[in-house]
């Protein structure tokens, strides 16, 4: 039974990794940069949800919505203030700028809620029984919300005009500019979307680990997931997240503790050595 518990835990953790990696991939596909602040955006949104429950005495659903809306606004604001002035510059300064954003966000949370860990546990404690397996509600909700979100995003990218525009930008920036897509607005929208995803991931993550300003470091742990899925493919990010979560929990059962933490990175090294483009790469011609 330990192994089944491990698998369920792994899938739930993998779903969170997948959501974070999804945020990375969204931003990367549109703007070709890695947003190192994704983990901290997650963190601050989880704190907003916490504030909604504790300070404003809203119920959980309302504060969930509040946090997601906050994520949308925050993402679009960050893009407008810090990323848009840097469009066209080399990658490194922009990546460093996102690291700067992550530090400022941590400091802001520290100023408002202090560095003491807080508890955000909106789901009930008693486990559900599904097919004879005990699943804790947090894990069940995590898996369900992730599945729903993936379905929604699939439909969004498939059928809505904005989704099609975003795909066009990922495919060919100049071409989509020429055909009249408002590229800047789309960039902004992508950041907002990724931050809202981060909000969902943060709220789902909060019951598993305590709320803490350094909670965002889980964002770095989700990076291998995005790379495994070749950083530009959304199904890839999801599969990568699941592989990562499962392998981490199962490795945690059988391997010494020291190795468990670096296990994602070891997998990443192996995959990158064998197939540096990641698993889900689609080949395309490149001009010099």
């Amino acid at each position, binding site marked *: 039974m330990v192994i089944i518990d491990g698998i369920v835990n792994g899938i739930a953790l993998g779903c969170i990794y997948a959501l974070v990696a999804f945020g990375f991939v969204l931003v990367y596909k549109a703007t070709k940069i890695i947003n190192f602040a994704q983990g901290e955006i997650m963190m601050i949104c989880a704190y907003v949800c916490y504030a909604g429950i504790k300070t404003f005495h809203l119920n959980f659903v309302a504060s969930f919505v509040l946090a997601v809306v906050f994520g949308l606004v925050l993402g679009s604001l960050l893009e407008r203030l810090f990323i848009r002035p840097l469009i066209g510059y080399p990658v490194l300064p922009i990546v460093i700028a996102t690291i700067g954003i992550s530090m400022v966000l941590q400091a*802001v949370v520290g100023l408002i809620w202090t560095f003491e860990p807080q508890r955000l546990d909106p789901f009930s404690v008693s486990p559900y029984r599904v097919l004879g397996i005990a699943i804790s509600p947090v894990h069940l909700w995590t898996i369900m919300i992730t599945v729903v979100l993936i379905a929604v995003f699939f439909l969004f990218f498939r059928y809505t005009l904005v989704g099609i525009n975003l795909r066009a930008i990922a495919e060919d920036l100049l071409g989509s500019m020429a055909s009249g897509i408002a590229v800047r607005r789309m960039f902004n929208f992508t950041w907002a979307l990724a931050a809202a995803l981060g909000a969902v991931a943060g709220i789902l993550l909060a019951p598993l680990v305590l709320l803490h300003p350094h909670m965002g470091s889980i964002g770095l742990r989700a990076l291998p997931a995005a790379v495994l899925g070749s950083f530009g493919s959304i199904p890839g990010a999801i599969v990568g997240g699941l592989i990562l979560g499962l392998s981490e929990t199962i490795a945690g059962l059988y391997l010494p503790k*020291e190795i468990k933490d670096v296990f994602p990175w070891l997998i990443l090294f192996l995959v990158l050595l064998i197939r540096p483009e990641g698993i889900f790469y689609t080949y395309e011609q490149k001009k010099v």
Partner: protein
Amino acid sequence: MRTLTISFGRQKIRFSDRMIKEEEEQGWWIVPLVLLIFSLPFVLDDYRIYLMNRIGVAIIGAISLDILCGFCGQLSLGHAGFLAIGAYSYGILHMTFHLPAPLSIVGAGCVGALLSLVIGIPSLRLKGLYLAIATMGFTFIVDDAIRFFSVWTHGVEGFRVSRVVHFGFMELHSGKTGFYYFLYTLVFAMVVFSRFLLHSKLGRAFTSIRDSETAAEVSGINLLLYKVLAFGISSFMAAVAGALMGIIIGTISPEDFNILLSIDFLVMLVIGGMGAAYGAVIGAFFITFLPEGITTLRDAFLPPGSDIAILQYLIYGLIILSFIVFEPHGIYGRWLVIKTYMKRFPLNEKRIGRIAWIRRWR
């Protein structure tokens, strides 16, 4: 790449950044700088000397990263890993095997260069941000390896490294001025070396790899050889910096070499300016002094005992952000623009002097 356009009447000449960098160097300012740095120990107290030593190590580390990132264009977040490798192999060679100190420092560098093959060879296939992520993984793996092999490295409890170094007849204590002179001689050697490297055949190969790998390969540059060389040189210097850092601190533990240190080095490069070695020096100076400045600010404006961590994060983050948003090419890049402006003074157009950020915020 930013270009400057200068008009002479109707004729317009475009200067690119790269052309400005290739201008002839004027070395007159080095003499007063050397005099200043070598006369500092007469003025400063022990703590300030310790700080200056940290800055020296940071300069060596930043220059080594500049050779990798700024010259050769290989983004690396694994630099803390190489510093850790240097520090620990110095510790093991010197303290456990009792090798003489100079030999152990060089040996630490060699171990770093050897282990850089782990990243150097995959870097042929990994590009840009992928390489950054893989090297970040390298930092984490080194961190865990240190904890795992605690028989050799003493794990989290810390490895005590002797702060006294014997160089043949000399005996240098890292808190005293003798070591300071030794360290800064090394720093100057490194700066001069990197400047020569930049203008040598090797450096030209590196810069052409940075600008376009395909074009470099087509013009006959052996990518494998030169990338591995870039990683090797850079890691050698980083490992030496790590060994020196171990001597200065006295006790090394895995927490000294976490991912934040790697990020610090990249921030030094971005704030100082990449690809010219001087930028790395400016950045190292700035970033190492920053926590001091923040503490002074706290003492001046806030009640004693208020939380320093929050302030540090806030100011550090804001400084990074404002520097990058207003001047992505760093302090040295801005200095080059100002220098060109001054040089061509009577002939300059509005366009040269126009401050770039006004244009960028439209």
